[in-house]
Protein backbone atom coordinates (compact mmCIF):
# COMPACT_ATOMS: atom_id res chain seq x y z
CA UNK A 1 0.00 0.00 0.00
CA UNK A 2 1.34 3.44 -0.92
CA UNK A 3 2.38 5.52 2.04
CA UNK A 4 3.65 9.07 2.18
CA UNK A 5 5.74 8.80 5.31
CA UNK A 6 6.89 6.76 8.26
CA UNK A 7 4.69 5.98 11.26
CA UNK A 8 1.22 6.02 9.76
CA UNK A 9 -1.22 5.46 12.70
CA UNK A 10 -3.38 3.28 10.42
CA UNK A 11 -0.48 0.81 10.14
CA UNK A 12 -0.99 -0.29 13.73
CA UNK A 13 -4.20 -2.04 12.69
CA UNK A 14 -2.13 -3.99 10.14
CA UNK A 15 0.32 -5.31 12.74
CA UNK A 16 -1.04 -8.83 12.12
CA UNK A 17 0.42 -8.72 8.61
CA UNK A 18 3.92 -9.28 9.94
CA UNK A 19 3.13 -13.01 9.70
CA UNK A 20 3.08 -12.57 5.91
CA UNK A 21 6.51 -13.86 4.94
CA UNK A 22 7.21 -15.96 8.02
CA UNK A 23 3.99 -17.48 9.29
CA UNK A 24 5.50 -19.84 11.84
CA UNK A 25 7.62 -17.26 13.60
CA UNK A 26 4.95 -14.56 13.26
CA UNK A 27 2.29 -16.77 14.86
CA UNK A 28 4.63 -17.82 17.65
CA UNK A 29 5.34 -14.16 18.32
CA UNK A 30 1.62 -13.28 18.57
CA UNK A 31 0.88 -16.30 20.79
CA UNK A 32 3.72 -15.26 23.07
CA UNK A 33 2.59 -11.63 23.06
CA UNK A 34 -0.99 -12.54 23.99
CA UNK A 35 0.20 -14.83 26.76
CA UNK A 36 2.53 -12.17 28.21
CA UNK A 37 -0.27 -9.62 28.57
CA UNK A 38 -2.75 -11.97 30.28
CA UNK A 39 -3.51 -11.51 33.96
CA UNK A 40 -0.82 -13.42 35.88
CA UNK A 41 1.36 -12.70 38.89
CA UNK A 42 1.09 -9.11 37.60
CA UNK A 43 -2.33 -7.63 36.78
CA UNK A 44 -3.18 -6.51 33.24
CA UNK A 45 -3.13 -2.99 34.63
CA UNK A 46 0.42 -3.31 35.97
CA UNK A 47 1.52 -4.84 32.67
CA UNK A 48 -0.06 -1.95 30.74
CA UNK A 49 1.86 0.59 32.85
CA UNK A 50 5.14 -1.29 32.33
CA UNK A 51 4.46 -1.51 28.59
CA UNK A 52 3.73 2.22 28.47
CA UNK A 53 7.03 3.01 30.19
CA UNK A 54 9.00 0.67 27.93
CA UNK A 55 7.25 2.09 24.86
CA UNK A 56 8.76 5.47 25.76
CA UNK A 57 12.24 4.03 26.11
CA UNK A 58 12.07 2.23 22.78
CA UNK A 59 10.33 5.33 21.40
CA UNK A 60 7.66 3.43 19.50
CA UNK A 61 4.75 5.75 18.62
CA UNK A 62 2.46 2.80 17.88
CA UNK A 63 3.10 1.30 21.30
CA UNK A 64 2.71 4.68 23.00
CA UNK A 65 -0.76 5.15 21.47
CA UNK A 66 -1.77 1.57 22.13
CA UNK A 67 -0.60 1.45 25.75
CA UNK A 68 -1.84 4.93 26.63
CA UNK A 69 -5.28 3.65 25.70
CA UNK A 70 -4.72 0.33 27.46
CA UNK A 71 -3.73 2.16 30.66
CA UNK A 72 -6.84 4.38 30.49
CA UNK A 73 -9.06 1.34 29.90
CA UNK A 74 -7.58 -0.21 32.99
CA UNK A 75 -8.37 2.82 35.07
CA UNK A 76 -4.89 4.37 35.30
CA UNK A 77 -4.91 8.16 35.56
CA UNK A 78 -2.60 10.83 34.17
CA UNK A 79 -0.42 10.98 37.29
CA UNK A 80 0.19 7.23 37.35
CA UNK A 81 1.00 7.17 33.66
CA UNK A 82 3.36 10.14 33.87
CA UNK A 83 5.10 8.57 36.90
CA UNK A 84 5.51 5.33 34.96
CA UNK A 85 7.31 7.09 32.12
CA UNK A 86 9.46 8.96 34.64
CA UNK A 87 10.56 5.61 36.00
CA UNK A 88 11.60 4.62 32.47
CA UNK A 89 13.28 7.97 31.90
CA UNK A 90 15.10 7.78 35.25
CA UNK A 91 16.53 4.35 34.44
CA UNK A 92 17.47 5.55 31.01
CA UNK A 93 19.28 8.66 32.28
CA UNK A 94 20.77 6.71 35.19
CA UNK A 95 22.12 4.18 32.73
CA UNK A 96 23.91 7.01 30.91
CA UNK A 97 25.10 8.78 34.04
CA UNK A 98 26.51 5.66 35.68
CA UNK A 99 29.08 5.60 32.89
CA UNK A 100 30.27 8.86 34.41
CA UNK A 101 32.19 6.65 36.80
CA UNK A 102 34.05 5.16 33.88
CA UNK A 103 34.75 8.67 32.68
CA UNK A 104 36.06 9.62 36.13
CA UNK A 105 38.25 6.50 36.20
CA UNK A 106 39.69 7.43 32.84
CA UNK A 107 40.24 11.06 33.86
CA UNK A 108 42.12 9.85 36.91
CA UNK A 109 44.22 7.53 34.82
CA UNK A 110 45.11 10.14 32.26
CA UNK A 111 45.64 13.22 34.37
CA UNK A 112 48.01 14.31 37.12
Amino acid at each position, binding site marked *: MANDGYFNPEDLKRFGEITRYQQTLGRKFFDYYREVFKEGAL*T*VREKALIALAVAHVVQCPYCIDAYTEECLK*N*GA*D*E*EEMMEAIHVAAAIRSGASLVFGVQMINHIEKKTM
Partner: protein
Amino acid sequence: MRQATQTLRRLRSPLAQTRYQLKVLHQPIETHAFPSFADTLRQHGKYPLKRAKLEILQLNLGKLCNQTCRHCHVDAGPDRKDEVTSKEILQRALELIRIHQIPTVDLTGGAPEMNPHFRWFVEQCSAICPHIIDRCNLTIITAGKQYRDLPQFFARHGLHIVSSLPHYSKNRTDAQRGQGVFEASIEALRMLNDVGYGQPDSNLQLDLVFNPTGAFLPSQQCTLERVYKDKLLRKYGIRFNRLIVITNMPINRFLDYLLQTGQYEQYMQTLIEAFNPATVDGLMCRNTLSVSWDGYLYDCDFNQMLDLKINHPSPHLLDIDIDSLEGLPIALHQACYGCTAGAGSSCSGEIAS
Protein backbone atom coordinates in the same frame (compact mmCIF):
# COMPACT_ATOMS: atom_id res chain seq x y z
CA MET B 1 -19.48 22.73 42.13
CA ARG B 2 -19.35 23.83 38.50
CA GLN B 3 -21.31 22.27 35.63
CA ALA B 4 -19.13 20.34 33.14
CA THR B 5 -21.20 21.55 30.20
CA GLN B 6 -24.76 22.58 29.30
CA THR B 7 -27.64 20.41 28.13
CA LEU B 8 -28.03 19.92 24.37
CA ARG B 9 -31.52 21.31 24.79
CA ARG B 10 -30.26 24.54 26.30
CA LEU B 11 -27.54 24.81 23.64
CA ARG B 12 -30.24 24.29 20.99
CA SER B 13 -28.10 21.57 19.46
CA PRO B 14 -29.68 19.64 16.57
CA LEU B 15 -28.86 16.51 18.61
CA ALA B 16 -31.56 17.55 21.09
CA GLN B 17 -33.96 16.08 18.50
CA THR B 18 -33.95 12.28 18.77
CA ARG B 19 -34.76 11.98 15.08
CA TYR B 20 -31.54 13.79 14.23
CA GLN B 21 -29.55 11.48 16.53
CA LEU B 22 -31.00 8.41 14.86
CA LYS B 23 -30.12 9.89 11.49
CA VAL B 24 -26.50 10.36 12.59
CA LEU B 25 -26.36 6.84 14.05
CA HIS B 26 -27.81 5.21 10.95
CA GLN B 27 -26.04 7.26 8.32
CA PRO B 28 -22.97 5.06 7.99
CA ILE B 29 -25.19 2.04 7.23
CA GLU B 30 -26.57 3.84 4.22
CA THR B 31 -23.03 4.42 2.97
CA HIS B 32 -22.28 0.76 3.94
CA ALA B 33 -19.46 1.74 6.25
CA PHE B 34 -20.90 -0.10 9.29
CA PRO B 35 -23.00 -3.27 9.35
CA SER B 36 -26.44 -2.77 10.93
CA PHE B 37 -26.79 -4.18 14.44
CA ALA B 38 -29.77 -6.27 13.30
CA ASP B 39 -27.66 -7.83 10.51
CA THR B 40 -24.87 -8.62 12.95
CA LEU B 41 -27.38 -10.41 15.20
CA ARG B 42 -28.78 -12.24 12.18
CA GLN B 43 -25.30 -13.46 11.27
CA HIS B 44 -24.98 -14.99 14.72
CA GLY B 45 -28.46 -16.52 14.66
CA LYS B 46 -29.71 -14.11 17.35
CA TYR B 47 -32.31 -12.19 15.34
CA PRO B 48 -34.98 -11.15 16.14
CA LEU B 49 -34.04 -10.38 19.72
CA LYS B 50 -37.11 -10.94 21.89
CA ARG B 51 -38.21 -9.81 25.30
CA ALA B 52 -38.09 -12.46 28.03
CA LYS B 53 -39.86 -12.48 31.40
CA LEU B 54 -40.06 -9.07 33.07
CA GLU B 55 -37.78 -8.85 36.09
CA ILE B 56 -36.84 -5.18 36.40
CA LEU B 57 -39.08 -2.15 36.21
CA GLN B 58 -36.80 0.81 35.60
CA LEU B 59 -38.46 4.14 36.29
CA ASN B 60 -36.76 7.22 34.95
CA LEU B 61 -38.09 9.78 37.44
CA GLY B 62 -37.14 12.72 35.24
CA LYS B 63 -34.41 14.54 33.41
CA LEU B 64 -33.84 17.05 36.19
CA CYS B 65 -30.33 16.77 37.66
CA ASN B 66 -28.01 18.93 39.75
CA GLN B 67 -25.13 17.95 37.42
CA THR B 68 -24.52 18.23 33.67
CA CYS B 69 -21.97 15.50 32.98
CA ARG B 70 -20.27 15.55 29.60
CA HIS B 71 -21.10 11.93 28.74
CA CYS B 72 -24.76 11.92 29.90
CA HIS B 73 -26.95 9.76 27.64
CA VAL B 74 -30.07 11.37 29.16
CA ASP B 75 -29.07 14.98 28.43
CA ALA B 76 -30.09 15.67 32.02
CA GLY B 77 -29.40 18.93 33.82
CA PRO B 78 -30.69 21.64 36.14
CA ASP B 79 -32.72 23.27 33.34
CA ARG B 80 -34.93 20.22 32.71
CA LYS B 81 -37.39 21.10 35.45
CA ASP B 82 -40.54 20.38 33.48
CA GLU B 83 -39.74 16.71 32.76
CA VAL B 84 -40.37 14.86 36.04
CA THR B 85 -42.68 11.90 36.69
CA SER B 86 -46.12 12.69 38.09
CA LYS B 87 -47.77 11.01 41.08
CA GLU B 88 -50.42 9.51 38.78
CA ILE B 89 -47.77 7.59 36.81
CA LEU B 90 -46.08 6.48 40.03
CA GLN B 91 -49.41 5.26 41.47
CA ARG B 92 -49.90 3.10 38.40
CA ALA B 93 -46.34 1.79 38.67
CA LEU B 94 -47.03 0.74 42.28
CA GLU B 95 -50.17 -1.06 41.21
CA LEU B 96 -48.27 -3.04 38.56
CA ILE B 97 -45.41 -3.84 40.94
CA ARG B 98 -47.92 -5.22 43.45
CA ILE B 99 -50.10 -7.17 41.02
CA HIS B 100 -47.21 -8.70 39.06
CA GLN B 101 -44.86 -9.02 42.04
CA ILE B 102 -42.04 -7.43 40.06
CA PRO B 103 -38.88 -8.41 41.96
CA THR B 104 -36.70 -5.35 41.20
CA VAL B 105 -37.51 -1.67 40.84
CA ASP B 106 -34.71 0.48 39.50
CA LEU B 107 -34.96 4.26 40.01
CA THR B 108 -32.96 6.46 37.71
CA GLY B 109 -33.01 9.92 36.18
CA GLY B 110 -31.59 12.67 36.15
CA ALA B 111 -31.24 12.71 39.90
CA PRO B 112 -34.23 10.61 41.00
CA GLU B 113 -34.13 12.19 44.47
CA MET B 114 -35.06 15.57 42.93
CA ASN B 115 -38.48 14.25 41.93
CA PRO B 116 -40.91 15.74 44.52
CA HIS B 117 -42.62 12.32 44.95
CA PHE B 118 -39.38 10.36 45.43
CA ARG B 119 -39.65 9.74 49.17
CA TRP B 120 -43.37 8.99 49.04
CA PHE B 121 -42.80 6.51 46.24
CA VAL B 122 -39.92 4.74 48.01
CA GLU B 123 -41.99 4.42 51.20
CA GLN B 124 -44.88 2.83 49.29
CA CYS B 125 -42.70 0.68 47.09
CA SER B 126 -40.51 -0.75 49.84
CA ALA B 127 -43.62 -2.29 51.38
CA ILE B 128 -44.33 -4.35 48.25
CA CYS B 129 -40.97 -4.85 46.48
CA PRO B 130 -37.96 -6.71 47.92
CA HIS B 131 -35.28 -4.94 45.87
CA ILE B 132 -35.21 -1.23 45.07
CA ILE B 133 -32.20 0.25 43.34
CA ASP B 134 -31.55 3.99 43.48
CA ARG B 135 -29.07 5.32 40.93
CA CYS B 136 -27.77 8.16 43.05
CA ASN B 137 -25.24 10.59 41.61
CA LEU B 138 -23.76 11.15 45.14
CA THR B 139 -23.45 14.94 44.90
CA ILE B 140 -27.20 15.34 45.37
CA ILE B 141 -26.64 14.26 48.99
CA THR B 142 -24.50 17.35 49.58
CA ALA B 143 -26.51 19.66 47.30
CA GLY B 144 -28.69 21.23 49.99
CA LYS B 145 -30.16 20.90 53.49
CA GLN B 146 -33.21 19.02 52.21
CA TYR B 147 -31.02 16.20 50.87
CA ARG B 148 -28.48 15.72 53.66
CA ASP B 149 -30.54 13.06 55.42
CA LEU B 150 -30.82 10.94 52.25
CA PRO B 151 -28.29 8.35 53.53
CA GLN B 152 -30.50 7.70 56.60
CA PHE B 153 -33.59 7.58 54.40
CA PHE B 154 -31.93 5.11 52.00
CA ALA B 155 -30.81 2.93 54.92
CA ARG B 156 -34.24 2.96 56.54
CA HIS B 157 -35.79 1.55 53.38
CA GLY B 158 -32.91 -0.79 52.54
CA LEU B 159 -32.32 0.77 49.13
CA HIS B 160 -29.54 -0.66 47.02
CA ILE B 161 -27.43 2.36 46.02
CA VAL B 162 -25.62 2.44 42.68
CA SER B 163 -23.46 5.53 42.19
CA SER B 164 -21.25 6.84 39.44
CA LEU B 165 -17.68 7.61 40.30
CA PRO B 166 -15.97 7.37 36.94
CA HIS B 167 -12.54 7.52 38.54
CA TYR B 168 -10.77 7.42 41.87
CA SER B 169 -8.76 10.42 40.72
CA LYS B 170 -10.11 13.94 41.06
CA ASN B 171 -8.87 15.06 37.63
CA ARG B 172 -10.56 12.27 35.67
CA THR B 173 -13.85 12.53 37.61
CA ASP B 174 -14.10 16.32 37.46
CA ALA B 175 -13.23 16.37 33.74
CA GLN B 176 -16.32 14.29 33.05
CA ARG B 177 -18.74 15.40 35.76
CA GLY B 178 -17.75 19.01 36.65
CA GLN B 179 -15.27 20.82 38.89
CA GLY B 180 -15.78 19.93 42.53
CA VAL B 181 -17.81 16.76 41.84
CA PHE B 182 -15.06 14.47 43.09
CA GLU B 183 -14.78 16.12 46.49
CA ALA B 184 -18.56 16.28 46.95
CA SER B 185 -18.80 12.60 45.92
CA ILE B 186 -16.18 11.58 48.48
CA GLU B 187 -18.06 13.48 51.19
CA ALA B 188 -21.30 11.72 50.18
CA LEU B 189 -19.60 8.30 50.14
CA ARG B 190 -18.35 8.92 53.69
CA MET B 191 -21.91 9.77 54.77
CA LEU B 192 -23.17 6.54 53.15
CA ASN B 193 -20.42 4.52 54.84
CA ASP B 194 -21.31 6.13 58.18
CA VAL B 195 -24.88 4.80 58.08
CA GLY B 196 -23.61 1.32 57.16
CA TYR B 197 -23.51 1.31 53.34
CA GLY B 198 -20.69 -0.79 51.86
CA GLN B 199 -19.53 -2.02 55.27
CA PRO B 200 -18.47 -5.67 55.53
CA ASP B 201 -20.95 -6.57 58.28
CA SER B 202 -23.94 -4.77 56.74
CA ASN B 203 -26.70 -5.67 54.26
CA LEU B 204 -26.76 -2.15 52.85
CA GLN B 205 -25.36 -2.51 49.36
CA LEU B 206 -23.33 0.31 47.79
CA ASP B 207 -22.02 -0.24 44.26
CA LEU B 208 -19.93 2.21 42.28
CA VAL B 209 -19.97 2.68 38.52
CA PHE B 210 -16.85 3.08 36.39
CA ASN B 211 -17.36 4.39 32.92
CA PRO B 212 -14.49 5.49 30.70
CA THR B 213 -13.73 9.20 30.85
CA GLY B 214 -13.20 9.37 27.09
CA ALA B 215 -13.62 7.51 23.81
CA PHE B 216 -12.33 4.09 24.80
CA LEU B 217 -13.76 0.83 26.10
CA PRO B 218 -13.43 -0.19 29.72
CA SER B 219 -11.24 -3.10 30.77
CA GLN B 220 -12.11 -6.06 32.98
CA GLN B 221 -14.48 -5.34 35.86
CA CYS B 222 -12.61 -7.57 38.35
CA THR B 223 -9.22 -5.86 37.85
CA LEU B 224 -10.72 -2.39 38.05
CA GLU B 225 -12.68 -3.31 41.17
CA ARG B 226 -9.52 -4.39 42.99
CA VAL B 227 -7.75 -1.13 42.14
CA TYR B 228 -10.76 1.01 43.09
CA LYS B 229 -11.17 -0.75 46.43
CA ASP B 230 -7.53 -0.39 47.28
CA LYS B 231 -7.23 3.27 46.25
CA LEU B 232 -10.47 4.47 47.87
CA LEU B 233 -9.77 2.68 51.12
CA ARG B 234 -6.14 3.73 51.41
CA LYS B 235 -6.60 7.34 50.41
CA TYR B 236 -10.08 8.18 51.69
CA GLY B 237 -11.08 5.33 54.03
CA ILE B 238 -14.09 4.55 51.79
CA ARG B 239 -15.62 1.09 51.35
CA PHE B 240 -18.09 -0.18 48.78
CA ASN B 241 -19.39 -3.55 47.56
CA ARG B 242 -19.08 -3.97 43.79
CA LEU B 243 -17.68 -1.98 40.94
CA ILE B 244 -19.96 -1.93 37.91
CA VAL B 245 -18.26 -1.23 34.59
CA ILE B 246 -20.41 0.48 31.96
CA THR B 247 -19.50 1.37 28.36
CA ASN B 248 -20.34 4.89 27.20
CA MET B 249 -23.22 4.84 24.74
CA PRO B 250 -23.09 7.01 21.61
CA ILE B 251 -26.31 8.79 22.57
CA ASN B 252 -27.03 12.43 23.51
CA ARG B 253 -24.06 14.20 25.13
CA PHE B 254 -21.54 11.40 24.60
CA LEU B 255 -22.55 11.30 20.93
CA ASP B 256 -22.09 15.07 20.84
CA TYR B 257 -18.62 14.70 22.42
CA LEU B 258 -17.65 12.06 19.82
CA LEU B 259 -18.84 14.24 16.94
CA GLN B 260 -17.25 17.42 18.30
CA THR B 261 -13.87 15.73 18.79
CA GLY B 262 -13.94 13.85 15.46
CA GLN B 263 -13.90 10.44 17.19
CA TYR B 264 -17.37 9.19 16.27
CA GLU B 265 -16.47 6.86 13.39
CA GLN B 266 -13.49 5.41 15.22
CA TYR B 267 -15.51 4.78 18.38
CA MET B 268 -18.28 3.03 16.43
CA GLN B 269 -15.65 0.95 14.66
CA THR B 270 -14.18 -0.05 18.03
CA LEU B 271 -17.62 -1.07 19.34
CA ILE B 272 -18.40 -3.06 16.18
CA GLU B 273 -15.03 -4.84 16.12
CA ALA B 274 -15.52 -5.79 19.78
CA PHE B 275 -18.98 -7.34 19.15
CA ASN B 276 -19.29 -10.37 21.41
CA PRO B 277 -22.18 -12.76 20.64
CA ALA B 278 -21.93 -14.23 24.17
CA THR B 279 -23.40 -10.99 25.56
CA VAL B 280 -26.65 -11.07 23.55
CA ASP B 281 -28.74 -13.42 25.69
CA GLY B 282 -27.95 -11.38 28.80
CA LEU B 283 -28.79 -7.94 27.37
CA MET B 284 -30.79 -5.93 29.88
CA CYS B 285 -33.50 -5.05 27.33
CA ARG B 286 -34.64 -8.67 27.56
CA ASN B 287 -35.83 -8.52 31.18
CA THR B 288 -36.24 -4.77 31.82
CA LEU B 289 -39.10 -2.41 31.14
CA SER B 290 -38.02 1.20 31.08
CA VAL B 291 -40.58 3.91 31.83
CA SER B 292 -40.06 7.55 30.87
CA TRP B 293 -41.07 10.50 33.08
CA ASP B 294 -44.29 10.83 31.06
CA GLY B 295 -45.15 7.12 31.27
CA TYR B 296 -44.07 5.81 27.86
CA LEU B 297 -42.52 2.35 27.70
CA TYR B 298 -39.17 1.30 26.26
CA ASP B 299 -36.98 -1.82 26.19
CA CYS B 300 -34.19 0.10 27.96
CA ASP B 301 -33.17 3.57 29.13
CA PHE B 302 -31.09 4.08 25.96
CA ASN B 303 -34.07 3.42 23.71
CA GLN B 304 -36.00 5.86 25.88
CA MET B 305 -33.48 8.59 25.09
CA LEU B 306 -33.74 7.80 21.36
CA ASP B 307 -37.55 7.67 21.68
CA LEU B 308 -37.75 4.13 20.29
CA LYS B 309 -40.79 2.75 22.14
CA ILE B 310 -41.55 -0.93 22.72
CA ASN B 311 -43.06 -2.72 19.74
CA HIS B 312 -46.56 -2.71 21.19
CA PRO B 313 -49.78 -0.99 20.07
CA SER B 314 -50.23 0.73 23.47
CA PRO B 315 -46.76 1.59 24.73
CA HIS B 316 -47.85 3.52 27.82
CA LEU B 317 -47.83 2.57 31.51
CA LEU B 318 -51.46 3.60 31.96
CA ASP B 319 -52.63 1.22 29.19
CA ILE B 320 -50.19 -1.68 29.22
CA ASP B 321 -50.99 -5.31 29.92
CA ILE B 322 -47.69 -6.54 31.42
CA ASP B 323 -48.38 -10.15 30.36
CA SER B 324 -48.38 -9.09 26.70
CA LEU B 325 -44.73 -8.00 26.81
CA GLU B 326 -42.95 -11.36 26.77
CA GLY B 327 -41.88 -12.38 23.27
CA LEU B 328 -42.11 -8.87 21.76
CA PRO B 329 -39.25 -8.09 19.36
CA ILE B 330 -36.89 -5.52 20.90
CA ALA B 331 -36.40 -2.18 19.12
CA LEU B 332 -32.78 -2.26 17.88
CA HIS B 333 -30.48 0.46 16.54
CA GLN B 334 -26.78 1.16 15.95
CA ALA B 335 -26.05 2.33 19.52
CA CYS B 336 -26.88 -1.26 20.63
CA TYR B 337 -23.27 -2.08 19.69
CA GLY B 338 -22.35 -0.29 22.94
CA CYS B 339 -24.03 -3.09 24.94
CA THR B 340 -22.38 -6.00 23.11
CA ALA B 341 -18.77 -4.78 22.96
CA GLY B 342 -16.15 -6.81 24.81
CA ALA B 343 -17.56 -8.29 28.00
CA GLY B 344 -20.83 -6.43 27.30
CA SER B 345 -22.45 -3.65 29.25
CA SER B 346 -25.69 -3.20 31.12
CA CYS B 347 -27.00 -1.26 34.12
CA SER B 348 -25.56 -4.03 36.28
CA GLY B 349 -22.16 -4.02 34.59
CA GLU B 350 -20.41 -6.68 32.50
CA ILE B 351 -22.64 -9.32 30.90
CA ALA B 352 -20.17 -12.06 29.90
CA SER B 353 -17.00 -11.96 31.97
